[in-house]
């Protein structure tokens, strides 16, 4: 992108540097290649053939079909749960963080510094350390074992708020807001018609990170849910894996592996499709660091 035009020297490309980085790329890609190749193998091929070579038969489609039909199609249910948690949880988190980040960046109200201090403290306190008390609290409220137990905690993203805040400081000119006010627009109307458009790359970035953390969430649902019917993919997959290694269990490693691939693919696709947006969102956001 802009890297080559920015330097006045236009340094020559270095094959040595590229080769070193390619080594690192191998480290990144080999496990994923292993996963993809393994997803094409039958259970017996998995055990008998080398990890990075294809097996005797190409069983990918068969594995996918089995993953979705095993145990009365529970995997599809988990996929649906994950989507529900992501749409409502990450969507809500993005909306809340966007509004709050904008509010903190563009309004000088009293108590603004106190809000900042509390948020900073919250980022430093480990979220997982709060999981057990949150479970007990939700248990008293009768929320455990319901989707709300996953959705409500997902609604808050201090990091997302921080990103929008720094992004809004850069991307939303005060003059524009003033002009809209002079034209008689209310604050909410300004937010929805003027601000949101300017904030879009920042919002996409926040949404993407919120989606990833909700899609990948494991600890919270593990604690909150005891009914497999409400599991997201992560907890479900690990349950399949754990039951495969128990006493007298029937291993379904090929389904765990294929299910893992199916779990990864949507996020990877989202990242690749939206990369222009989220990379510019991050870059503008880091101006203030």
């Amino acid at each position, binding site marked *: 992108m802009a*890297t080559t035009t920015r330097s*006045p020297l236009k*340094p020559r*490309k270095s*094959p040595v*540097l*590229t080769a070193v*980085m390619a080594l690192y*790329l191998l480290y990144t890609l*080999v*496990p994923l290649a*292993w*996963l993809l190749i*393994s997803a094409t193998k039958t259970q017996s091929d998995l055990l008998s*053939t*080398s*990890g990075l070579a294809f097996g005797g038969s190409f069983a990918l489609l068969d594995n996918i079909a089995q993953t979705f039909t095993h145990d009365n199609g529970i995997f599809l249910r988990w996929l649906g749960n994950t989507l529900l948690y992501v749409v409502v949880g990450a969507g809500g988190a993005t909306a*809340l963080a966007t*509004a*709050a980040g904008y*509010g*903190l*960046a*563009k*309004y000088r109200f009293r108590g*603004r510094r106190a*809000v900042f201090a*509390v948020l*900073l*403290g919250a980022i*430093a*306190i*480990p979220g*997982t*350390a*709060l*999981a*057990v*008390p949150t*479970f*007990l*609290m939700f248990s008293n409220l009768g929320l455990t074992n319901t989707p709300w137990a996953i959705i409500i905690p997902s609604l*808050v993203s201090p990091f997302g*708020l921080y990103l929008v805040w*720094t992004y809004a400081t850069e991307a939303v000119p005060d003059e524009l807001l003033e002009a809209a006010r002079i034209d008689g627009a209310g604050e909410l109307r300004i937010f929805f018609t003027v601000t949101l458009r300017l904030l879009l790359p920042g919002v996409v970035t926040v949404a993407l990170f919120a989606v990833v953390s909700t*899609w990948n969430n*494991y*600890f919270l649902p593990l*604690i909150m849910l005891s009914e497999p019917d409400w599991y997201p*993919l*992560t907890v479900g*997959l690990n349950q399949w*894996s754990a039951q495969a290694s128990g006493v007298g269990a029937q291993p379904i*490693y090929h389904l765990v*592996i294929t299910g*893992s691939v199916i779990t*990864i693919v949507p996020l990877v696709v989202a990242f690749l499709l939206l990369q222009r947006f989220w990379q510019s969102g*991050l870059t503008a956001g*880091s101006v203030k*660091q």
Partner: protein
Amino acid sequence: MTSSSTPVRASPRPARRRRVDRRGWLFVAPFLVVFALVFLAPIAYAMWLSLFREQVLFGGTQFVGLDNYAAVLGDGRFWESFLRVLLFLVVQVPVMLGLALVAALAIDSARLHAAGFFRIVIFLPYAVPGVVAALMWGFIYGDHFGLAADLNEWLGRRVVEPLSGDWVLASIGNIVTWEFVGYNMLILYSALKVVPGDLYEAAAIDGAGALRTVVSIKLPAIRGALVIATIFSIIGSFQLFNEPNVLRSLAPNAISTFYTPNMYAYNLSFGGQQYDYSATVAIVMGVITAIIAYVVQLRGSRKGV
């Protein structure tokens, strides 16, 4: 971290501004309400719980003051798990951030072929759920059909045993490194992107080489980003749970139920019903984490000014 540096423009009409200003709460309040429910309330509740203890014989709970805290501080299992994540932190975080820094500098240097490709591919593991990464690496480490087994077969001996007691912590470190180098690289790279081009121009005119530019311009420019990445990594290390918990089903002898403080707190609650004691462990870890994160932030922002 930085709002203090936000330029506050002096307003010519303070009276009008104050009227507008209060409306800021309109945007911030919804976030704060949910935030109070899922951050502040559990903290308060955990503190409350930590003052009680379940009576084994009579089934009631009794107020015990700070007894639970004294018990945690004298608990060998807690300290064993704490020292383990501390060792993990001291080794894994520098390795991960070092790799991330090298990658970010390489991609930013304009000397790399296909820099955009490298950037996106190195970032990709971040999109892989920790559970899936742990399952995947667990299989790769394993005897059944992993690459470790392939390697041992090829060597003719059992040399590589990533899931054995001696190696499993390093194996977990490898998984975490694999997952998060790209994420940290992106934080550092984003900071590098906004270094003003004039600085490089000036350095070049002064005859600075590539290394000198890195040391004198790039590293100071991204110090804030490095501090943030370090703090997130420290928090991540102290919270370690997913990877060891998932690997436990593959290596139950090497990974105990109190392998990390978080696993200890989890198993106290859900294996032992010791909710009060579990809450105390969570608070103690939270306080230690917050203190260390705070110290790092202070030191990080003071250094080299």
